[in-house]
Structures are given as C-alpha cells and as structure tokens.
C-alpha cells in the first residue's frame, strides 16, 4: 500500500467523474466514463465474435508494486496485451468502483476495502477451476483473509505487510537515554512516558484513521473493529495524551523522513520501513532504520487481486491471477518491493536477505499476533475519521 | 535704412507687473526630441497669454513645464520672481485645465471641484462656500452630485474650469480648453470662458492650435513652431504685421508673392514679382536687390472687371473657384504665371456675384499699405 501525494489530484478528477455518474442515476450504461482506459474501448470496437475473449487485459494496481519482468513475461506467455494503470489510494479505487464501469479486469484493493466492494456486489466470484496455482497459497494467510472473504471466494492476496513501529535505532537510543526500550514497543508511540522523550527526534504518525484505530483500540484493550462509539472515545483519549509529542502526520513519505533523519519513530508500514532501511544502506547514510515486530501485534493488510463484476475480460483476468500465483512470479514481486507474498511455492525463489528478514517474513506466531484485516460500518468510519481529524488538529 | 514696425521683443511686458517669466527654457525628450527650444517669455498679471502653433510644435510641453509635470532640460521658470523650476507641481500655486479635462471619474462634480481645496486643509464650511460659488459661476449647481460621465461635453468643460479656478491660482493654464467641443459650442464657449476668467481676474496661459480661438481669447499671442517662438505680440499686430512667411501663413489666409526689391527708398520700396509689381508705402530693413516675400491678405484685395490705373499693385487672372461663406465670398483667380490668388469680398449687398463668374477674366488691386514685406 503505497501512498503518495499525487493521489489528491487524481482524487479530484475522480470526484468530478463520480459526481457526474451518480447524477446520471444508477444506470451502468449512461456515463461516458473518462477514467475508462482508452485501449479497451478501441479494442472493443474491433472485438471478435462473442464467446472468444479478445486478447486484452486491463489492470489497476498500486504504483511501484511490480517486478520489471512481471508484465512482459505474462504477455509473452499468453499473447494477451496488458494495459496497466496505477493508483495511490484505496479511497480512489473505491470511488471508481462505486461509480462502476471502471473498464478494468483486475483491481487490487486492500482486503478490507475489497470486502466493502464484495458487499456492494462490485466484485465477481472467482472460478477456481481456472486457477490451478491456487494450491500454492499459504493456508495461514488464506485463513486470515477468509475472515473478510468467507471461503476465499473473491479475493487473492497480491502481497501483504502490516502496520507497525519503525525506528531510527541510534537516535531513539540517544533520545531515551537511560530508559530501556519498552516491553510493548507500541509504548514508543502511545505512552507519553516515551513519546515525551522521543519528541526531540521526531515522531510521525500515519494519516490513516482506519489503520491507526484498530491498533489504538487493541492498545486500550477494546475490540479492534468495535462498533461502540465509547471504545473509540477511549482510544481517542489515549491518543490525545501523546498528541503534543507528535511532529508529523504522514500519508506516505515516511520513507524519506526516516532515511533522512527527520524523524526517529514512525507508526507506519513495515514494508516502507524496510524500504527506508534499504535506501539508507544504499545511500551509505548513517541512519540505521529498523521495523519492529511488536508483541501486541500490528495491523495486517493485504492488497488483493479482484475481478470487478462488470469486467469485460474475466477469462484473461483469471489467467493473470494464475500467472501471479506461480512461485517464481510471486517471488519476483517480493524481491522487487520487499513486501511478503502469500505463496509457499515462491519461498525458494525469494532472495535470502528478504527471506531471513524477520520483519518481512514473520514467524507463524508473529503472523497470528497480527490484527487481521477487518472492517467497520459507514457510521463507525465516520466516527473514526471525525475523531482522527480532531486528534490531528489537537483540539 | 528705414525701420519697419516689427515687434521682435515683448515690449509691453516691461510696463506691466510681471507674473511669470520663462528664461531660455529647452526641453529635450529621450535625449533626441527637442520639443521646446530655448524659449523665453513673460506673462503679465491679469492677461490671457496665448500659445499658438500647429500640432506637435511643443505648446503642451511648454505648458507642462509651467505646471511642473516636466522638468526643463535647460532654463528657468519664475513665478512672482521666485524660481519655481524645481518646485514639484503639487507645490505650485498654478492650476491647469487639461486638454480633455481629466475629471476624476469616481468623484462627483462637487467633489471634483472641492478636491484641491481639501488638500489645503481648508475648513469644511469654507470649502462648501467656495465650491458652491464656483459651481454658480460655472452654472453647474444643478449637477453638483452627478458623476462626470453623466454630463455633456460642455458641462464637463465647465466643471474642469471650476475645478482649476477653485483654488484661486496665481496662474491658470489652459491646454486646448475647447478642443473637445464641437465647432458651434466652441464659439459660444470661447466668450463664456473669457467672461469667467475676467470675472475672476486670473492670469492665464492658453494653448491652442486654432488661430481664431487665440485671436478671440488672448490679449497676447506667441506663435510657436518646432519648439521655438516665431513671434510674440497682440493679436492685431501679429495679424497685420507678421514677421515671417511662416507666421503670415499660419495666421489667417494669405497670398504670398515672391520677388525682388528693385527700389529701396526710406518712404517706399518697390518689389518686382512674376504677376505684378508691388509699391509698398513704407521703408524696410534690407537693401535693393534682396529677395523678399510679399504677403497680401485676401480681404485686402479688391476685384474689378476693368483694368486698374497705374503700373503698381494690381494683377489679373481667371476665376477658377468661388466659395460662398455667407458673410463673405472668396474668389480664386489663376494668373498667367500659374499662381492662384485668393480675394475676399464682403457680401454687403444681396448681389452676390459682383458680376463675376467661373472663367471670367478679372483684375485684382490693392492699396500701397495693404501688404507686408517679409525677409524671413
């Protein structure tokens, strides 16, 4: 899940297109959808007779989430021409899905968003007979995912990571002084005892209420996906105590801030912390960055492949999913972006450095510790957003 | 040699009280354009001084230097014997009425007139009194609350005048004050303007390109060309005795004969031209054999069908054009030498033709003091 700020410009365009669509009523056909890939329309015009699917596949995925050879190899293997568009946030993908007629055959929402889309009837069921490589999938991960998608009928994990604490080891040591590292490393961002010290070298918090609240709720011993407003108030009160010590709210950009020494502690994505680590090693900078695996557990997120209900090329989409599930292909993704994959057959092909990194390839126990992807209703999301806004403004 | 009555210098200035003195002023724009070239003049208290000249001759530039909008490149300007050359315009007790009025569009007539008074921190009630008096003078009371764009051209002109007079300036500068009005309105306004100015008793410098306007309004006129003065004097003097071909040509209509002095006596000279021989009844500064111009105003020429007596001061030609002006008629006659001479006859009878019509052969004759001999 990689955010960058260009999402906002995109989002404005989506708002525009979305409002138009919504305004034109619920008809799926009416809208001249600006966001629809041009290629698919062109090809559609030259489409062969029904039955046979044209050799085209439209994919909508996160940016920087591929190995260089992933697509070319698929095209070579199948003769299917891939059109690959990227997005930067679940929110934007979701808005497009709601507006329908995305023109995509594969989209990659995070699993909790995927669930909303399933509930809205926006995603079609997988035909597992077309996915012989399904057997490669790790049952642990499948079980985690099944909590949102019972029977794993719609979503297939692309890669996964988790929200946790990342630190600049030396700076944190200096800032804490005599104080030892806490038993529960979440204390580094949630306990004023620690944050008041770490304030000096900079604390950054993810600007994503739906990812911070499950952790904060668990921290104050409430259900992670509680639907009770009072629970959120409790988590909010806890957060407000550390608010004066927080330097920054980031949506992405923590990689830079950590690698350059601007901040020393971050609540963010493990994958990003490992990228920051990789980068500071490559740049031979003195910042020693580490993702922490907390005892209490972080918030697991999976970015999952799904086929929109109105996809024009579902067969090709299945072919693509099956291709990704090949061990070698899936390992290629992991090697490129340092995110873990759910594919057992891939493990032999994953580079040792990544395989041995306990913050990427978590132990089974650590995986079990994670908060599995979950979801709340719209009303609760509103409470989350509202409280988080208040938290950010500090009033 | 005989002395001709040619006022080269500004003789009357000496006898009266001088208000404005311009001494050797030159203005060069952008290092190259010489707009005003070494000009000197004096303006007496109470007089209306006209600056007359064709477009682009530097009148406005000279006026703007008096107002303080332009700095002279060389020379000095004195007001009441005080050197004001370097005084910024807002400190000069001089007001100007602009060529197209420059009334403040966002202010009412009343506020426009009061504008200058407010800058002097005059008490409010006095301002009100003064403004009302000015509006009365300019017959504008009814329009006090209007904005300039809601007024006619003539009304705007009067507002501009009222505004420039409100501060009771020592000197009033008028740049083409009637230039924006149509001809009919201009004639009535000329006199109105003079009346108001005389009622207030302010000294004026008036810029115009219209010689009639200058003649009607000014007590003295400076004729300008290419940045310098050709002649300064009372309107009648300039009209009757221009000191150069250029002035003669500029002021009113004139027939110009080129010739040679063949007799030079103290009391008369004789000039031989192509179509006639002039006998001039006074002497001149020059000598025999000199090439001169003889200027003859059309209204000084009489027409007849019979050949005049004597050998001097007549010419003959064929009528090629008759232009009827109502009060007078102008005839164009072509001489054998190919020149066209204009003659003007007053229409004091209802017999308009004076017996002449197109193609007629006619004689022109004039008195021996009718012409002006020009050496420049």
């Amino acid at each position, binding site marked *: 899940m990689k955010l960058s700020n260009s999402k906002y410009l995109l989002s404005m365009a989506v708002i525009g297109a979305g409002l138009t669509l919504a305004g034109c009523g*619920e008809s799926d056909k009416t809208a001249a959808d600006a966001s629809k890939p041009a290629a698919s329309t062109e090809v559609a015009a030259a489409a062969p007779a029904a039955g046979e699917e044209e050799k085209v596949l439209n994919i909508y995925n996160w940016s920087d989430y591929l190995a260089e050879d992933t697509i070319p190899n698929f095209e070579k293997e199948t003769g299917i021409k891939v059109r690959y568009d990227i997005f930067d946030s679940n*929110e934007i993908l979701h808005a497009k899905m709601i507006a329908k007629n995305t023109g995509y055959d594969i989209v990659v929402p995070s699993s909790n968003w995927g669930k909303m889309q399933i509930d809205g009837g926006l995603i079609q069921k997988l035909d597992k007979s077309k996915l012989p490589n399904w057997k490669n999938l790790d049952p642990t991960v499948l079980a985690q995912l099944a909590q949102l998608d019972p029977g794993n009928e719609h979503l297939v994990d692309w890669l996964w990571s988790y929200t946790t604490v990342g630190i600049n080891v030396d700076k944190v040591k200096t800032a804490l002084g005599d104080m030892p590292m806490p038993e529960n490393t979440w204390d580094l961002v949630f306990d004023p005892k620690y944050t008041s010290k770490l304030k000096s070298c900079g604390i950054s918090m993810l*600007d994503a209420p739906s990812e911070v609240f499950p952790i904060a709720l668990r921290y104050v011993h409430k259900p992670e996906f509680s639907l009770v407003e009072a629970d959120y108030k409790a988590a909010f009160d806890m957060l407000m105590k550390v608010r004066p010590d927080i330097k920054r709210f980031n949506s992405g950009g923590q990689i830079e801030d950590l690698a350059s020494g601007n901040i020393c502690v971050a609540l963010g994505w493990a994958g990003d912390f490992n990228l920051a680590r990789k980068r500071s090693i490559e740049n031979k900078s003195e910042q020693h960055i580490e993702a922490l695996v907390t005892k209490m557990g972080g918030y697991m997120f999976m970015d999952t492949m799904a086929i929109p209900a109105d996809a024009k090329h579902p067969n090709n989409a299945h072919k693509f999913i099956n291709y990704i599930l090949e061990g070698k292909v899936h390992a290629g993704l992991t090697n490129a972006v340092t995110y873990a994959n759910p594919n057992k057959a891939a493990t032999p092909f994953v580079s040792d450095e990544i395989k041995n990194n306990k913050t990427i390839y978590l132990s089974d126990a650590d995986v079990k510790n994670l908060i599995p992807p979950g979801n709340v209703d719209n009303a609760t999301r509103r409470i989350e957003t509202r409280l988080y806004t208040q938290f950010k403004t500090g009033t | 040699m005989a002395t001709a009555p040619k006022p080269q210098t500004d003789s009357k200035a000496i006898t009266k009280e001088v208000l404005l003195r311009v001494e050797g002023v030159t203005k060069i724009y952008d290092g190259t354009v010489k707009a005003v070239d070494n000009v000197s003049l004096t303006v007496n208290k109470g007089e209306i001084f006209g600056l007359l000249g064709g477009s682009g001759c530097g009148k406005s530039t000279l006026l703007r230097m008096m107002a303080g909008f332009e700095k002279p490149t060389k020379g000095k300007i004195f007001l009441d014997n005080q050197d004001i050359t370097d005084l910024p315009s807002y400190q000069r007790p001089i007001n100007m009425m602009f060529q197209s009025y420059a009334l403040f569009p966002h202010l009412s007539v009343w506020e426009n007139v009061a504008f*200058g008074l407010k800058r002097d921190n005059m008490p409010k009630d006095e301002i009100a009194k003064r403004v009302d008096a000015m509006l009365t003078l300019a017959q504008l009371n009814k329009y006090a609350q209007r904005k300039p764009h809601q007024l006619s051209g003539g009304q705007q002109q009067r507002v501009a005048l009222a505004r420039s007079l409100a501060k009771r300036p020592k000197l009033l500068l008028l740049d083409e004050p009637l230039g924006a009005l149509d001809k009919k309105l201009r004639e009535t306004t000329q006199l109105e303007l003079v009346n108001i100015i005389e009622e207030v008793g302010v000294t004026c410098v008036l810029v115009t390109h219209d010689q009639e306007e200058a003649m009607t309004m000014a007590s003295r006129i400076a004729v300008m060309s290419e940045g310098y003065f050709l002649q300064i004097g009372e309107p009648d003097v300039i009209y009757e005795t221009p000191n150069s071909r250029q002035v003669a040509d500029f002021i009113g209509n004139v027939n110009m004969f080129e010739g040679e002095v063949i007799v030079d006596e103290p009391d008369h000279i004789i000039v031989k031209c192509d179509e006639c021989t002039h006998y001039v009844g006074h002497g001149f500064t020059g000598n025999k054999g000199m090439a001169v111009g003889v200027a003859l105003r059309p209204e000084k020429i009489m027409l007849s069908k019979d050949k005049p007596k004597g050998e001097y001061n007549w010419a003959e030609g064929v009528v090629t054009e008759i232009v009827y002006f109502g009060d007078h008629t102008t005839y164009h006659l072509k001489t054998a030498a190919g020149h066209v001479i204009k003659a003007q006859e007053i229409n004091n009878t209802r017999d308009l033709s004076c017996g002449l019509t197109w193609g007629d052969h006619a004689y022109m004759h004039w008195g021996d003091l009718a012409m002006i001999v020009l050496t420049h």
Partner: protein
Amino acid sequence: MNMLKNLFQGNKLVIGIPYGWFLLLVAIPLLIVMKISLSEMEATSVSNMISWTNGLPTLKLNFANYQFIFSDALYVKTYISSIKYALITTLICLAIGYPFAYFMARAPKHVQPTLLMLIMLPFWTSFLLRIYAWKTLLVSNGVINNVLMSLHVINAPLEMMNNSFSLTIGMVYSYLPFMILPLYANLSKLDLRYLEAAADLGTSPFKAFWLITVPLSKAGIIAGSMLVFIPAVGEFVIPELLGGPDTLMIGRVLWDEFFSNNDWPMAAAVAVVMIALILVPMAILNKAEAKLEEA
C-alpha cells in the same frame, strides 16, 4: 412558431450562448451536487430520491446532512478557518500584488510584455511540482534552513513546514498571479493625467495614490481578490501538501467525507454549504454596490 422565430433572432442567440454555457457547466452540475446532498449513502451507491410505491412516485429528501453540518462544531470551525486562510491569502496577495502590478504598469512599454511573461512563467511548470519545490525549501533539512545554519544565523532548524506559515506561503505563491494579472490590466489602463490633475491640485504623490489610483483600480482589486479568495476557500492540494495537521481547510474535510467516510451525500452537502457561504455574501455585496452606483 413565433417563439421559435424569436429564439433564433440574432441577438437572442448571442445572449443565449453565455447563458447556455452557464447552464451546462455551472447550474446543472450544481443541481446534481445538490440532489446528491439530499440523498442518503447506501453501502456502495447513493440512494434514489424518488421511489415508486403502488405506482406512485414518492420524493424523499434527506436534510440530515445539512443538520449534521450545523450540529458538529468541526464543520463550522473548518468553514471559519478556511475563510480565514483565504482572507489572509487574499490580503497578502493584494499587499504584494498591488505594488507589483503598479510598477509593471508603470514600467517602460517595451519591457512590459517581458514582465508579464515572467509573471506567467511559473504556469509552465506543473502546479504540483512548484508546491513540492516549496517543500524542499521549507523542510527542516531544506535549502533555507541549511543556508541559514551554515551562515550561523540560526542554531536549530526553523519549523517552517506543515504549519500555517508554509500553508500561507504556498497559497500566496500559487494565487499571486491571479491577483497581479487583473490588477495589471486595470492599472495599465489608468489615465496618468488623473495623477497629474491631482498633483496640479496640490496632492502629493503618496496621497494621490490613495485618493486616485486606488479608488480608480477598485474594479481590478475586486476582480483580483475574487480570483484569489474563491478558489482559496476551497483549496485542497496546498493545505494537503504544505499545511499542518492543525490547519483546517474545508477541502480536506470534503476529501475525508468523500473518500474516508465514503459518504458522497455528506461531501456534496459540505460543498453546497461552501458555495453558499461564498456566493451569498458576494451576491449581496454585488447588489449593494449596484445600488450605490445607481444612487
């Protein structure tokens, strides 16, 4: 028949074009937004306003969103804060832009096109890039701090980023041309004889500026201020990139409603209230001014 004839008479058509434009690009979208604001969000779609019961249509209008906006202090606070930042931006743009436009208009005629070009030059670069550039200037290890530190002007980096300071800088920087251009257009048309007339009547240049130049450029000031103020109120990108967590702007709240809360009707209601907040006072101002002109 007659009506049809009237419709196609030349000048009616000419008048009709801007109205048609307005209808198509402003009125209709606005109506759609209003319609959405009066519906309810279902899981992944907006509710239908008209439902059919027993073959009869029932119109269901949901005003809850508007009620909610006024019941939760957050929105009111955010509107006030947005207007505050927009006002500050407008005033600073005016303070910087006016002298800028003034000297441009007074510059020699032959350099004016170049100056104008320079004002518009930034538009050749992506807006987003330019905002990012400010980021690199303002961050604690950014250019400004590095220079000041190496010159020993400061010991610790100044906190210039992600607060109201960086937000204001970004907004002023981005909107300044929209202030300068109408002001320049206005000031370059100013007849300098008015200033001469003022000087002639005893007004110092400084006074003349306030008494003549400023009132006569009122139209330019109003146009420039509108061009800055209106988009600044709803500005989203700059507060998102340069603002801090505590700089509340309605654009961000709108984004949250739309994307985080997935509540389109609420987002639409927030937008409608924002438009009303800007347009209503402006319409009143316009009317009052028109009346003043008439009197």
